[in-house]
């Protein structure tokens, strides 16, 4: 057993975990943050994507002890109180989810993708960058639409913020 100490969704948390415990299991089982899902055993599906120190990471590829000392953002911490994050809002508006199981990973991947492309996104880039996330329900059509829309919204709001400054 090892001690794991993390900053998760803005809160300092700690706990003991077996050395073999994956970050995703620590989040789900120790912290009760069940929004992060496990859809495969081979780091292929992306249902478990969270942000570790600001980068999208499949939380099944990392041991909880490896993540100790890091700052983690999960789907539960993305919205600002009652205000949805623009990517969350876009997934709802554009019907980018059906069963909802891949959705947290998709949204966490998308927010990372958008922040890495401040110049904006096109459909081909979004599709290529979704390579690590599998959805079985939507055929990706509306997920792509939602990410493109969110990218536009966030670019616009940044522009406005800059102007205001």
């Amino acid at each position: 057993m090892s001690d794991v100490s993390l900053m998760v969704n803005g809160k300092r948390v700690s706990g003991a975990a077996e050395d073999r415990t994956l970050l995703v299991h620590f989040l789900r089982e120790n912290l009760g943050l069940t929004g992060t899902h496990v859809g495969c055993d081979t780091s292929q599906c992306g249902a478990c994507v969270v942000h570790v120190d600001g980068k999208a990471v499949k939380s099944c590829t990392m041991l909880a002890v490896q993540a100790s000392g890091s700052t983690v953002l999960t789907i539960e911490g993305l919205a600002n109180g009652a205000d949805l994050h623009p990517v969350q809002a876009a997934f709802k508006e554009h019907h980018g989810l059906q069963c909802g199981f891949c959705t947290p990973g998709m949204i966490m991947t998308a927010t990372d993708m958008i922040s890495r492309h401040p110049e904006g996104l096109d459909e081909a880039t979004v599709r290529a960058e979704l390579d690590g996330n599998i959805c079985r329900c939507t055929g990706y059509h509306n997920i792509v639409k939602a990410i493109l829309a969110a990218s536009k919204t966030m670019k616009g709001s940044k522009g406005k913020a800059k102007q205001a400054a």
Partner: protein
Amino acid sequence: MGIEGVGARVARKEDKRFITGAGRYVDDMVVPGMKHAAFVRSPHAHAQIKKIDVKKAQGMPGVIGVLTGKELKADGIGNLICGWMIHSKDGSPMKMGAWSPLAFDRVRYVGDAVVIVVAETKGQARDAAEAVEITYKELKAVVDASKAMDKGAPQIHPEADNNLIFDWDIGNADDTAAAFGKAAHVVKMDIINNRLVPNAMEPRAALGHYDKAEDHYTCWTTSQNPHVARLVMSAFYNVAPENKLRVIAPDVGGGFGSKIYIYPEEIVCLWASKKTGVPVKWVADRTESFLTDAHGRDHHTHAEMAFDKDHRILGLKVETQANLGAYMSLFSSATPTYLYATLLSGQYNIPAIHANVKAIYTNTAPVDAYRGAGRPEATFVMERMMETAARQFGVSPAELRRKNFVTAFPHQTPVIMCYDAGDYAASLDAAMQASDYAGFAKRKAAAANKGLLRGIGMSCYIEACGIAPSAAVGSLGAGVGLWESAEVRVNAVGTIEVLTGSHSHGQGHETTFAQLVNERFGVPIDSVSIVHGDTDKVQMGMGTYGSRSGAVGMSAIVKALDKVEAKAKKIAAHLLEADEGDIIIENGALKVAGTDKNVPWFQMALAAYTAHNLPGGMEPGLKETAFYDPSNFTFPAGCYICEVEVDPETGVTEIVQFVAADDFGNIINPMIVEGQVHGGLAQGIGQALLEGAHYDNSGQLLTASYMDYTMPRAGDLPSFKVSTSNTPCPGNPLGIKGCGEAGAIGSPPAVINAITDAIGSNDLAMPASPSTVWAAIRAATKH
């Protein structure tokens, strides 16, 4: 239509919890004292179990119990069953072999469950599972249905000689032979429909909890039909009587058919909970899902179609071998028979049809309904045949289809189905226009300039949804009725709960069902809650599959709403001192037509519950229940056109355009309908280009992870051009046909027709992977 009513593009109510990580799936459930299970599974495709030694495992850290099939049998837990009786053409009943939830004498496929280990943690359960020592005597295995009936093939179940489960036929063999006798042209094809793994993103899971104080069981399970699960576990598996068993299917992460069936794990978790005295949770890992979720398709078919000199179809002969795997899953017998061969008339006038289906055991995972269930297999046969015929005759594929379309309704086919309504030419025209079919030659030439082979292919599918009239399916062998139930509870403050036997696992019922109520009573959809997935809340239901939640589930809600409306109007008429016939419901109030006299909806509801001033003899309260049994299947149909570019150097296929024109009848929420089509298309295109389950000859599943089984990813697919027309379905009050499976049904032949058009060779197996396409191009060039 109001902004939240029928036909409105309303954003989904359920999304809030899913996009914030607050969805509640079975693996998210925690019960006090809950422990974790792991299953020991057969590593062999076919073997005798000589000895099971659990001693070492029992002594491992954290282990609470290690239980075997012998103990399960001793406690009287029954075998798994197939709930649809099929009789062979000689009149004999299908040959169902025994399927114990835990194998104790013989294992028949890799993944067959043998032992359950319950431990404090999932890790400890898995460690201990590895310490269970099982001695097997390996037996010869067979994985290919076409070889399973050969002399010398291993006998998988003593009940089924030569591994033949049934040899069934439909249609008229003599009429069909006569039709072929008159034929000017005969088109013949051998067609394989590749085996698929459903792959809902949420792996299957079960949490069994036995409450000793109440002598009562609760099962949280990933089910599309919790009431059916309770019924079957109670009536056939002797887990507990129905009144002592509650089944809850909370948020379920996709089903696609694979979560209809009752699997060994939920039964064993319930039983193990009683044995060990702790709640027992099991969650499949992805490889377990690949090994043990019911697979789909796996048909080998020979088909012949007879045409007259004017290219009108005279007859169709079909011989299909259906691989049902090692055991008969719950509805496995219906899929290759009544859900398949009854659709072999396609959209066409075919005077004579005869189909023969042999269902065969093999040492592979059980095969059952997967999105479309039989109808994709039928459509693939029909639409590959039509395209091939057009090529052989040198005529336009569109015009050959158009010439043979059914245009007068109702239309009785020679294979049971009676099509009630449709306009197949309208969908064909819409798809041709949306795809700029006329401009294809130009695009093909432009592609050729880039060194690419461009092809176009179409598929005109029909399917049967809204299953189904209970008496009709009963006469065909179904063990259950296929009606649906609904209960509408108007609360004293006017808010409404709708309890439904349908189950949402991605379909958006919490929104569309609420839209139905909004349309009727003007109550905002946020004031309408849809309750489903819990046998303690909803009395009974048949669940969601076969695109039935709209046509059957919503029809039940409409019936209940009718009753609520009738009583509400009586109350309002009494309060307003008006005639009941003069009351209309508008803008959230009950009004006397043509006057300004009205009573708001919530006041009427309050009056129903205060009961201070009700019409004489009326019972207080406002709650109505209805059961709806459909009068016919519904028949969604449409036309899909796929355009591809193939790189002849690599065999890589890119779908450059995909057009879907569907006729789903009336639509409640177009946004959700489009989403269903997108998802279906992705699964159908996945089947055509990427997906295939492969066993080696010893019965090992070679495609048992996402490293080996190619799931469609965003980069494999285009954005889709979808449109709908709506010929209302005359068979149900809403005129709905259903939309959940069309995409998966119609798309595979469109893709294969497009690729074969591009490469100039008609011989191409699914999945048309780059190597397969490249080999087909090479083979065609050699000739």
